[in-house]
């Protein structure tokens, strides 16, 4: 079920009403049971067979969590059980997501040495939606118990609800048990303000998805499909639009997820903090897909030594997390290159000691407009990040490099015309207005409609819905880009 579907429009209020009716009678178990059933139903509409994978991941980590804790009580670390969780979840990912990639890469590598083997080992495997997200979430539970950050829950219902909580099941935010599980095990009460905030986030998320991402999707698709014949000006347009598309798509999803969770009295972590207003690549990674970045920091970068080791080892650690992060996105060399490119962009920032200087503030912190230096920083960071998206969007490495080659060799300016005749000025105005509006609200990613005047607020809601009407495209595939990861 998609957030931007009619089915969800029926599903959400139904679950919401039932949930609070049950909540009225203080039946927490029943409330969690309802969330669990609703989550399995939500997921099962894609493919009910993959529910068994979620169930398996749930049971394994539930038992592993208890076993680790028990071992720790006996003075042991419980490393064996941790490895069971890690191997099980990585195997799930490895088989469903990376098996064919490894086989194909092996065949390609062998052919480099002059041998030829027929790739008959590849399988016709369907990638289960959200597998990368929920396996990381369950793994983090076992890791947190291992590192004694949390204690395991003995209530399987609560744990299953934590794993399958439908707002964030298929595309995050990848929650930590320390945040989400605690909320699930405790009684929730209906709060008017929280629900209103949730609805506002859902509306803003829908705008980002349906207007920004879906609105420009046909243009991006056309440019990337025909990049071999287009001039560099059009390629720049295509990759810039893709940058906005992927941001609108994923951050829109996250906003809807966070907003939906709020309706159920649950606070999820922020996943996007206006990454387009980052002053360097390090700040970008503190603002883009925060739940994944922090996951890698907590469970990979810090255990490897983080930055508290020699410079050389720190660079190695940075390279590892970016390459793994790239690989997490998809079983394709393009994603590994994408990760590698970001590592190369991040390392100089790290060496200059500027990787944490923007951690606790935003651009133009105390002023209305950014300074010229800040504008330069924003533009440069945006260019670097957008350039990296060529790898992210291309079907293969060859496509990426041909795209880049054309970008620098076919340098000419030509106005772009979409075959369907879309009026391009509409999109330029839309994106300019979007950037300016996001700049206005850059201090708080959870309050997209922060206006004191109710009239202005009402006008903003109306305008956002009007934009959805103006840019709705019946022919666009409405699924979310990050579902494929």
């Amino acid at each position, binding site marked *: 079920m998609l957030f931007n579907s009619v089915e969800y429009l029926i599903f959400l209020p139904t679950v919401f009403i039932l949930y609070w009716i049950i909540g*009225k009678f203080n039946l927490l178990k029943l409330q969690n049971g309802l969330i669990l059933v609703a989550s399995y139903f939500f997921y099962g509409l894609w493919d009910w067979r993959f529910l068994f994978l979620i169930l398996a991941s749930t049971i394994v980590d539930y038992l592993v969590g208890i076993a680790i804790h028990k071992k720790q009580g006996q003075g042991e670390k419980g490393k064996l059980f941790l490895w069971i969780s890690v191997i099980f979840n990585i195997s799930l990912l490895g088989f469903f997501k990376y098996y064919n990639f490894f086989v194909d890469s092996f065949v390609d590598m062998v052919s480099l040495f002059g041998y030829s083997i027929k790739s008959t080992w590849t399988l016709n495997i369907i990638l289960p939606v959200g597998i990368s997200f929920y396996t990381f979430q369950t793994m983090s539970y076992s890791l947190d118990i291992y590192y004694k950050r949390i204690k395991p829950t003995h209530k399987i219902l609560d744990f299953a609800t934590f794993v399958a909580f439908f707002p964030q099941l298929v595309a995050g935010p990848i929650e930590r048990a320390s945040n989400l599980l605690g909320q699930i095990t405790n009684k929730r009460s209906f709060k008017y303000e929280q629900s209103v905030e949730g609805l506002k986030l859902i509306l803003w998320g829908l705008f980002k998805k349906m207007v920004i991402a879906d609105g420009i999707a046909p243009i991006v698709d056309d440019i990337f499909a025909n990049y071999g014949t287009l001039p560099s000006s059009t390629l720049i347009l295509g990759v810039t639009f893709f940058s906005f598309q992927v941001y609108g798509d994923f951050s829109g999803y996250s906003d809807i997820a966070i907003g939906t969770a709020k309706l159920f009295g649950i606070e999820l972590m922020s996943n996007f903090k206006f990454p387009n207003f980052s002053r360097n690549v390090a700040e970008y990674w503190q603002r883009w897909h925060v739940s994944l970045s922090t996951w890698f920091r907590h469970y990979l970068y810090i255990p490897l030594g983080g930055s508290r080791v020699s410079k050389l080892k720190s660079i190695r650690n940075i390279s590892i997390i970016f390459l793994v992060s790239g690989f997490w996105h998809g079983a394709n060399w393009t994603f590994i290159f994408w990760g590698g490119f970001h590592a190369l962009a991040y390392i100089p920032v790290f060496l200059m000691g500027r990787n944490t200087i923007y951690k606790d503030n935003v651009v133009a912190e105390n002023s209305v407009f950014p300074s010229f230096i800040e504008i330069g920083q924003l533009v440069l960071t945006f260019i670097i990040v957008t350039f990296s998206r060529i790898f992210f969007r291309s079907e293969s490495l060859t496509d990426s490099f041909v795209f880049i080659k054309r970008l620098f060799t076919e340098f000419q300016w030509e106005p772009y015309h979409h075959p369907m005749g879309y009026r391009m000025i509409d999109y330029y105005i839309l994106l300019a207005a979007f950037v300016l509006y996001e700049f206005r609200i850059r201090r708080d990613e959870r309050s997209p409609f922060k206006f004191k005047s109710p009239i202005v607020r009402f006008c903003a809601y109306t305008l956002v819905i009007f934009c959805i009407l103006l840019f709705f495209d019946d022919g666009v595939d409405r699924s979310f880009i990050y579902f494929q990861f």
Partner: protein
Amino acid sequence: MMAWIVRLFISNSDMIKLFLKISIYFFLICLALELLVRAFHLYPEDSPRFIDEMGVEKRVPNYNGFSVTGNRRQNFSEYHINNQGFNSYREFEPSYDKNELALIGDSYIQGFHQNYYNSIGKKIEDRTKDLEVYEYGYAGWDLADQLHLINAYKEDFSKIDHIVIYMKYPMDLERSTYEENKGRIKLLNSTSFKIRDNIKLLYYASQIGLLEPIKNLLVEKKDTEDIQENKTNTNPDSLYLANFDKLLATYPLNKSKTSLLLDKRNTSPLFLDHCNKLGIDIIDFGENFEITKKPVTLIYDKHWNNNGRTLVAKSIIAHLKLAKQP
């Protein structure tokens, strides 16, 4: 269940507040959107239709409006329904003294996607001397409708010098007899359509496909591919040719002044041969479409744009000039 819901609301003032506010906001936002859709004229205006005493389905005469296609009114054009019930810049007054051409067809000829004063007929008139073009276009017409029209207005058509019938093969030959489509008129006059016509926001939303998912959810989906497959299996050329022959038997054509306007590229050679054998003139605009480098269709739909209409007009003119040669 209802009692529980009521109990939930009564016992929780915050919940009442939330639902009350959602309802008020929903109503006010819909109202504001209705105003915006009207202010920017995003909605199309459908002129009313009826079946006249001759059994011809057409538009209610003397009606002006704007046709809007796509979201953000990417195609916006004015139409004018004349006294005879067709979208045209002129009234149809056939007489033996004048040189007239009747252009008959479906939505392509009806031309709601263009300004009525820039139609194919107008383009033909601008490029020829002393010729009046009467555009008998009506969306959804097939050959049965078109031949019925000629037969119903026999007297008028007897005075007209040239008749050009636009047809798409094989879509226009799916039936061999004419029947009035009273169901469609009834449907268009039904309350649900009247509501849609009056609430412009609803009309716009339905026009851009926003309501399609809701419709799909309510109405059981038919396997259109299967239907299509059946159709192609059971309707080969012979069936269309038989329909064509049967229609001509019912409504004989005056071959001396009637031509079929079509795109040969999309027409079966069997049908073209058949017309040749029957001595029916063909005007092929496909050749001109093939040569041009500019697009010939509009955005969002396949109707002809200004370039396409100019080329069709040129094809007709060229044919008429050819016809004058000894």
